């Protein structure tokens, strides 16, 4: 029972017009893992998250969450099943207060519960991400780092079992990033499975138990951080084939 993967993605693919954004991707997530999803710009990382959360239907393949086939689900169904995500481009309810934003997450990801309870619970999540003082501010007037925190609080309020973080650290300074990393570790300690998309290699490699690498929509590598860092295909994808060749010849000569 404990060995059953919380998420099992099998051969999913998605194209937009002529562009193949995700091509035959398969992987599994074990419950409680932190998995880093990396890849160059346009590799298909966000699209893969959109497929898992049902923003777009996959053209082919299947997605199984917690033993149930969820291929073709709608985003609201994903939310109710326990899949939450943050958006690369933050998506607040701009005119609502910070507290109301989080309350929306707490209220609707479950089928029942009163607004008052949801509000109370949301205050806890705001405290957790460090936004308690800004509870009554309209979301639109937050700074970017705070908007990212709000996204995080909102998705935590949904009490997810799987949390997909799409570049929550982009645009943050080093101090803010280390704060965010502590938060993510805390979230993981609650038993929530986390997929983190991140461009800063140092961040993903230090945080993740496992890394998946997407390139041109394909999963080109996967494994422990130190294995992936040495994988030639990954170096090539990131730094170009010329660089990879030089690396190779250097190491052969040496």
């Amino acid at each position, binding site marked *: 029972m404990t060995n059953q993967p919380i998420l099992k993605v099998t051969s999913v693919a998605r194209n937009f017009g002529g562009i193949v954004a995700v091509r035959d991707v398969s992987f599994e997530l074990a419950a409680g893992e932190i998995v880093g999803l990396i890849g160059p710009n346009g590799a298909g990382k966000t699209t893969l998250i959109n497929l898992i*959360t049902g*923003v777009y239907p996959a053209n082919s393949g299947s997605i199984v969450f917690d033993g149930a086939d969820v291929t073709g689900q*709608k*985003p*609201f169904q*994903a*939310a*109710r099943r326990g899949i939450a*995500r943050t*958006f690369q481009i933050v*998506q*607040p*309810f*701009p*005119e*609502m207060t910070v507290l109301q934003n989080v*309350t*929306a*997450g707490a*209220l*609707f*990801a*479950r089928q029942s519960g009163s*607004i008052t309870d949801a509000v109370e619970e949301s205050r806890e999540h705001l405290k957790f991400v460090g936004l308690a003082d800004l509870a009554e501010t309209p979301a639109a007037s937050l700074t970017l780092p705070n908007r990212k925190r709000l996204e995080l609080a*909102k998705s935590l309020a*949904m009490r997810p079992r799987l949390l997909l973080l799409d570049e929550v650290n982009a645009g943050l300074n080093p101090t803010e990033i280390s704060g965010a990393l502590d938060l993510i570790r805390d979230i993981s300690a609650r038993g929530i499975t986390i997929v983190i998309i991140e461009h800063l290699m140092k961040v993903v490699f230090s945080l993740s138990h496992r890394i998946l690498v997407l390139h041109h929509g394909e999963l080109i590598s996967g494994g422990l951080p130190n294995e992936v860092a040495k994988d030639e295909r990954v170096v090539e994808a990131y730094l170009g084939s010329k660089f990879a060749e030089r690396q190779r010849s250097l190491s052969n000569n040496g």
Partner: protein
Amino acid sequence: MMRRLTVPYVLFSIWVVVLCMLPFVESSYFVHLATNIALFTILAQSWNFIGGFSGYPSFSTAAFFGLGAYAGAITQNMGLPMELAWIFATVLVSALAALFGFILLRLRGHYFAIGSIAIVEVLRLAIASATDLTGGGNGMNVRFLPGGPEYVGMVFLYTMVGLMVLVFALTVWVDKSRFGFGLRCIRQNEDAANMVGINTNLYKIFAYVLSASFCGTVGAIYASWTGYIDPTDSFEILLTLKVPVMAMLGGAGTVIGPVLGAAAFSLLEEIFWANFLEYNRAILGVVIVILIFFLPRGLLNLDYHTLHRRLRHNAGRNPREPSE
């Protein structure tokens, strides 16, 4: 805090009492006016569910009003008691609104607006061409309620005000409920709303049906009240524009806004009717321009504090300005 929250209810209650007292203090003209105001208030409150809370600019009001008027008139002429005819009209309009909503609410923004106004034309043409049932362009008569004009006037006034109170109560409920919260989320960011677990399509269809149901009831009551309806009058494009303007004038998405807007607009219109008959149509245009430039969020959401300060500021400055 508590006092601020109860103000709308107090204002609304006073307004209801005023409308109900009119038959005792003044002529049939005022009874007619009060009935009309209640009618428009119901329409504006109805629009508020889809246009205000959910932020979908619907122009379907006249479609559901007209359909309700015909459904009520036809069934009443077939022998159904008046009240049952009204209920039948409400149910029919709600069912059709669910169907239209299912199709239309896939569209967003301008596309939805255009689709929603198209329904008015489609239904008008359908009704106008079903000559056997509706009398076509000649319109149709509805049996008058027996009992003399004064009594009949009061019956319709109290019916209309009663319905207005009911829709107000419904608005208060929506405003405080999980459902209303969800609609507000949809208004602000539909994709994010879906992502937190709101079944956005279902919510929108419910809001659209709510915004249609009572337009249907009001249409049916209107048919019984006036005793005669025709397609042009029942599916009037002007009505479909006027109602959202009323709601926005007061403050879309608020509880009391549509009540305030409908009253203000109707009274303004009445003053214009009485004094400048030929300019009556212009009032809608003027109100729209004022709304866009000065009151984008309605009377209720006006920043009175700033306005007051600015006016005082100007008043204080004027005397010092050199006189010509």
